[in-house]
Each structure stands twice: as structure tokens, then as C-alpha cells.
């Protein structure tokens, strides 16, 4: 049996289904992200693990102990809130030591742990400051240390970085990963930022409208999405209407031009079949053994590392991302364009 197991968990708030039939097995030391749009039930699921919400049905088992109905203060799981939630009346050191203090841990032991935690988050110099004297990023690091100080069985983070600005966000993200790996702590991380989920996690749970859409490693989620929702929520995706789909031989027609696609995974054809392909799979020009399509450039956006084009092929607009090169001549709006892509990069949805 896995370390943390969430089985058939549902939560209904007065008629609103917030979480439906959630099932997840988490191994010890794993870093799991819950990824999904606003209101899909990420926080609710996390709060059920923390004990702040009781499941309407199902159970949560941690380390072979059924904690479904255990009160939050007896679970020994650490939680980091989006809004930091530091106690404003306590110094950094007191905040970090709070969990040990209420456990009546001896003072010298508290001191040792607090010092260790301060070192871990690189805030040794700020031990005696009050939260209002710290920046948002520093406060969130303290909140992390406070949650870790009690040596929790699971660390839960609810969008811990979303109140911070972009640069700090990336910095702290790496910080969290470093600390998590160093301590080997089982972690569940809630976010609606796919980049965070992809870069941090061992596995990602993609959620939508209270249901799990797909569970998998970042590359599985990105490269082999099983539902249209996952495919379009994680990363950019072109969904191009096609006709004359032949699933057996993996061929179809896109605006009259023949396209071969990956038919190794079993798929069902809907009545409006579409070809799915990510923008970064395209290249410019002719190429042997690849799909070729012809159109003309309608939009050119230079984004630095990437040049994003919109190419019109008959009725449809296709997003094409090209990697920037120093000597590249940028296509111009109105140019005729031939783009190519490998058959294994696209599939039918």
C-alpha cells in the first residue's frame, strides 16, 4: 500500500459538487502537483487531506492510518497557504517554533530546530523580525519553514507562489524543490500554473470541474495527454479540423492536403475529428518524410527565444513556434509558407 492514499473521495458543498471520486496513491517522498483551472477543486482536495474539510464520501489513509475524520491538529501534516498566514504577533523565530511549542517540546530542542530551519531558508539574519518587516517572498519562506519544523508526514502547499512577482516566483520554486528533495518529504502542491507543475513534480494530477482528468509524469501529461482538456490546458495545442480520417493507416486530409498522423495509441473518432499538434513541432521549409502543408503567414510575434507565427491554411489558423536563431530571417506577414512536421508529433482527437 502506498504512503498516502486517497480513495473515492467526493465533496459536495450544499449541492455544489466540488470534488468527485478522487483517487490517488502517493509514494513516500513523491512530489505531486494538482493542476487545474480556478474552481476545479484543488484546494478542496488539499483541505480534505489537511482536515479542514470532511469528505462527503471516501477516505484518506496516511501511513496506514485512516485520517479521514481526524481533526487537523492531530494529523501532523504541514500546510503552506497562498496568503502566507504568518502569525503577525510573533517574530520569525517564534513563528517557526510555534508548532513545536504547542507540542511542549523542550526549549533547547525548539531552538535547535528553529536555527536549522532558518539556515534552510537562508533567513538567519531575520530571526527576530516581525512578519510585516519581511517581503512577500521572505514571508512565504518562513511559512514553509514553519510547516517543516514540525517534521510533518506530508507537506501541503496551496498556490504558495501566486501572490509573488514573477522573478521571486521562479526563485522560490527552485528553493521549494531543493528543500523538498533534501528533506525527502512527501509533497502535494496545488497550482494553476502549468510551468510550476511541469518543472517541480514527479507526477501531476490534472483536474477539471471536480474530476481528475489525468495523472502522470510531466512528460506523459505534456506529450501524451489522454483528454482534450489536458491537451489544451497544458501547453499550447493546435486543434485543426480534418476530413477523410483513416485511423487504420493513420492518414487524413487537412484542407485538402494529405497528412499522416500517429495512430499507435487507440483513439476514437468523434463526428468532428481534429488533428492535434503542438506549435513547437513545426519547422519551416520542405523536408523528406514529413508532413508538409502550405499556407501564408498572417501574424508574426517575436518573443525572444521563440518566434510565434500564425499561418493560415485555407479556413484554419495554425500556431507555429520557431526557435529563434541569430541569423534567422523572420518571415513577413503575407509571405507564402511551407511548414513541415513529423507524423509522430500529431494525433487525432
Amino acid at each position, binding site marked *: 500500500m502506498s504512503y498516502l492514499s486517497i480513495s473515492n473521495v467526493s465533496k459536495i458543498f450544499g449541492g455544489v459538487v466540488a470534488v468527485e471520486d478522487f483517487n490517488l496513491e502517493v509514494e513516500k517522498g513523491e512530489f505531486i502537483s494538482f493542476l487545474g483551472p480556478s474552481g476545479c477543486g484543488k484546494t478542496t482536495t488539499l483541505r480534505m487531506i489537511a482536515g479542514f474539510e470532511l469528505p462527503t464520501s471516501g477516505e484518506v489513509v496516511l501511513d496506514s492510518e485512516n485520517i479521514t475524520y481526524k481533526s487537523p491538529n492531530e494529523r501532523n501534516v504541514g500546510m503552506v497557504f497562498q496568503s502566507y498566514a504568518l502569525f503577525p504577533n510573533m517574530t520569525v523565530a517564534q513563528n517557526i517554533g510555534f508548532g513545536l511549542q504547542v507540542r511542549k517540546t523542550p526549549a533547547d530542542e525548539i531552538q535547535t530546530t528553529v536555527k536549522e530551519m532558518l539556515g534552510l531558508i537562508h533567513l538567519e539574519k531575520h530571526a527576530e523580525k*516581525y512578519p510585516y518587516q519581511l517581503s512577500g517572498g521572505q514571508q512565504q519562506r518562513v511559512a514553509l519553514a514553519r510547516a517543516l519544523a514540525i517534521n510533518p508526514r506530508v507537506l501541503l502547499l496551496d498556490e504558495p507562489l501566486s501572490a509573488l512577482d514573477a522573478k521571486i516566483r521562479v526563485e522560490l520554486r527552485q528553493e521549494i524543490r531543493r528543500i523538498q528533495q533534501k528533506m525527502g518529504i512527501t509533497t502535494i502542491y496545488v497550482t494553476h500554473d502549468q510551468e510550476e507543475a511541469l518543472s517541480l513534480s514527479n507526477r501531476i494530477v490534472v483536474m477539471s470541474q471536480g474530476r481528475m482528468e489525468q495523472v502522470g509524469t510531466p512528460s506523459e501529461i505534456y506529450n501524451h495527454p489522454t483528454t482534450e482538456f489536458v491537451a489544451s490546458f497544458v501547453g499550447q495545442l493546435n486543434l485543426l479540423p480534418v476530413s477523410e480520417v483513416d485511423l487504420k493507416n493513420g492518414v487524413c486530409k487537412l484542407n485538402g492536403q494529405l497528412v499522416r498522423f500517429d495512430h499507435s495509441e487507440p483513439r476514437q473518432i468523434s463526428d468532428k475529428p481534429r488533428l492535434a499538434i503542438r506549435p513547437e513541432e513545426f519547422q519551416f521549409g520542405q523536408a523528406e518524410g514529413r508532413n508538409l502543408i502550405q499556407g501564408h503567414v498572417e501574424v508574426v510575434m517575436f518573443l525572444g527565444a521563440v518566434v510565434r507565427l500564425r499561418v493560415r491554411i485555407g479556413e484554419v489558423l495554425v500556431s507555429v513556434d520557431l526557435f529563434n536563431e541569430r541569423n534567422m530571417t523572420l518571415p513577413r506577414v503575407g509571405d507564402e509558407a511551407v511548414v513541415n512536421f513529423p507524423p509522430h508529433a500529431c494525433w487525432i482527437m
Partner: protein
Amino acid sequence: MSSNPISNSVNTKRDAPQARPALSAWRDWLGVIPFFLFVFLFIALPSFRLLIGSFQDSDGQFTLKNFADLMDPSILGAYWVTIRISLTTALGGGLLGFLMAYAVTVGGLPRWVRSALLTFSGVASNFAGVPLAFAFITTLGRIGMVTVFLKLLGIDLYDKGFSLYSFWGLSLTYMYFQFPLMVLTITPALDGLRREWREAAENLGATSFQYWTRVALPILTPAILGTMILLFGNAFGAYATALSLTGGFINLITILIGSQIKGDVLHNVGLGYALALGMVVVMGVMMTIYYFLRRRSERWLKQ
């Protein structure tokens, strides 16, 4: 023109006073003129008059006799009973008001209870003087409705030692405007307690009691202290309620002052001034204690 943003901002600062003519500075102050007028006319001037008057005898000659008179046991007793009643009703009303505010904010009562309590508090906190005394006399007086009703049930309040015209009776009456004031001032503070603080505390293993003693109450302390001093002052300066309820049966300082100034048999204006000055001193001491407690309790507040 310098393109250096730092030197630019320094320039702007130096230019600012010139850019704003004196007239506009005047306009900024216009709104608070009534405030300063009131302070001057009704606080500064009377205080000054009080100070002078307390050192004068009835002929206007300098004397220290008024202060010597303050040492009279009956006057010291009056101070003491006034302080006691103010402390009692501040603490009692504070506690009661806190619990009620707690019930309608953090406690899970329906919304309408909250609006009902707040509306009542808005009215009741200003309900004092003759009407309040009258209300209590008609309910809990010797032949008040509740008294009579209880008597019918076989409970004789006045037989059991209760009297509306005693220390506790007066305290009870004061409570009527004391606890609503606490409700009004502490409700916003309780609303300011964030749910995440409670959850973070619980998550870290704290019991409800530990959360209240280590997180919530320390955070609320500045607000509680502020309200307590307000309640104390509120009771300390009350006059009409006590006078119309007990008719001078309980010797509050305010009633003593009233009788010195209004002029009946006891008429001695100088003593009245000295008594009032004594009140100012008591209030000053309370404010000083308050100031230090508050300073200690809000080190963590952004200044």
C-alpha cells in the same frame, strides 16, 4: 535636464513647497478648524479654568484648602467607589460585549443576529441618563415589572439583598451602555482575525485554547485595551444616570461636583474644581497605564 531618476526625485521634493502656494496649504487645514476650535473652547479653556479655580477660595484668593479638603474620607470614598464602578462595568461590559461580538462573528450564528446585535448596540451605547434610569426603575425597581413578576413566582429580589439603588444595581444599569460599546468597537477587530491564522495554528498542532491564548488574543489585545479605557472613561464621567437612579444615594465624584457647582447647601465652587482636577489626574493615570500596556502589546504592528 538630468536623466538620473534619483536626482530627479530629489529635485521634485525640493520644488514641492514652491509649487504649492500658501493658500492651498491653508485650504488643507480648513476642514479641521472646528476640531481645533472645540479643543480650545471646550477642553483647553475649561481645563485651564479648572486648574486656576481649584487654587482659589470663594473670594478668589489663592488657597490650597480645596486640595486639603479632597483628603476628607467621604471624598476619598467617592473617588474609590467611582473608580470601582468604572472598573467593574468596564471589565464586566467588556467581557460580555466580547462574548457577544465573538458569537456573531467567529461563532457561526446566522447573519441577521449580527445585524440585530449591531443595530441594538448602536442605539444602546448612547442610551443613558434619565431615560435609562427610568427604564431600569420600571423593570427592576422596588415595584418594577420584573421585580413584581418574580415576586409572584416567589422570588423576592429585594429580600435577597438586591437593590437597584446600590453599587451593583448601578453597575447593572451602566452595563446597559457599556457592553454595546464593546460590541461596536471589538466586532471589526474580530472580523479582522483571518481564517488562515486559525487554520495555520490548528495545522501546526495547536488546540483551540492555544490558538486563542497565543494568537487571537494577543492580536486583539491593542483593540481590547483601547476599548477598555473607553469604557472606563465612559463610566467614570457618567452623571445623569447615577443621579436620576440613586438620587445621590451613591456618592459618585461627578455627583459631588454637580452639587458643588449647582449650588445647594454644599456650594463650594473651588472644591468642585479640585474634585474635577482629581478626576483628570485619575484619568491621566489610567491613560498612562493604558499607553504602556498598549505599547507592549503592539510591538508587532506596523507603525
